[in-house]
């Protein structure tokens, strides 16, 4: 009876297989990392545009608030206050563990309370105003279903 020949791998073959596996692993992991980074850059770019659009909305609010200011008379002065949002902003994103909301975005700017004053109503309206209170604001947005939600 002839003995069945069992194929045997030589040590060299093992080494080759290990080497190929290592190369394959490196390629795949590197690709995944690159893909992730690309994804994050894309989301960051997306949030940058979103932030600029948001700041433009706040700028419109500034105009409206200034236009709709209520001037009142008190102690020989005409005064009015309104809220103004600073035009300088900082933004960043952060990865989360949520699959539905994989990123959140932070947008920071300043909120100022401005007083306009004058001896006459006209003077008060034309006054450039003075900031009497300023605070930092951070808005946190979520990135759900590939878009920023507010």
């Amino acid at each position: 009876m002839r003995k069945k020949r069992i194929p045997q791998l030589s040590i060299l073959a093992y080494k080759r297989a290990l080497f190929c596996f290592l190369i394959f692993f490196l390629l795949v992991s590197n690709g995944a990392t690159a893909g992730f980074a690309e994804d994050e850059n894309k989301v960051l770019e997306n949030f940058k545009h979103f932030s600029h659009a948001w700041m433009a909305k706040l700028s419109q609010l500034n105009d409206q608030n200034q236009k709709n200011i209520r001037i009142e008379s008190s102690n020989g002065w005409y005064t009015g206050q309104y809220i103004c949002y600073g035009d300088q902003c900082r933004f960043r994103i952060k990865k989360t563990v949520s699959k539905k909301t994989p990123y959140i975005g932070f947008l920071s700017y300043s909120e100022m309370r401005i007083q306009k004053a004058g001896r006459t109503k006209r003077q008060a309206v034309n006054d450039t105003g003075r900031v009497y209170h300023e605070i930092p604001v951070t808005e946190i947005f979520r990135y759900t279903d590939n878009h920023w939600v507010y």
Partner: protein
Amino acid sequence: MKKGKLIQVMFTFLILTLVISGCANMSGKQKAFWTGAAAGAVIGGAGGGAIDHNDGYDNNSNDDGIAVGAIAGGLVGGIIGYLTYKEEPLSPPEPEPEPIKVVPQPEPEPETQPKAEAQATPPPPPSPPVKEKIVLRGVNFDFDKSDIKPVFEPVLNEGARILKNRTDVDVVIEGHTCWTGTESYNQKLSERRAKSVRNYLVGKNVDPAQLSTVGYGETRPMADNRKLEGRRMNRRVEFSILD
């Protein structure tokens, strides 16, 4: 003297008289004299010539009559004019125009910037006690609901993380709505949602002693409620971090 020549002399005299009387530098009486003399010379000359012509003695005497008449008439007319002239009362001088009273006016204040003096601006209104604000966006509850959806959790978790690192501050969780719905409904809804967020944060180990809640309903819009965009901006939860 021939008649034609006489008339020429008279005419010249008349013109001379009129010119002289028109002189601006002459007084009123002088003008009256010369005007009267001119008129008298014409009338006297004409009268003397007529008388002399009617007597019929001598042809040449006609000329003499005119000359004598003109001179006599001129003298008489001048004297009459001089004597009859009445000085017209001088019209009273026009009153000098009222001097324009220049009332010293205070320097107009620049409209844009009041003077930098002690009383240049009124005291500002009291500042709110808020020193920082964190606005949670995308925490959009379903209609009439206040339960936390899983999609909100990353935003709320980040809020919890920030507050856990700021144990020294008090935080007011504010609920805000747009103006859709009645005022009283929105007021209660905003309170429920603020409490719901507070409960979630406490569940994430934020110190409950730090947290208080308030619902502002639709009373503190940040954007125009008449626009869809504005209503979306007005629906929000804010953390007001106090001094």
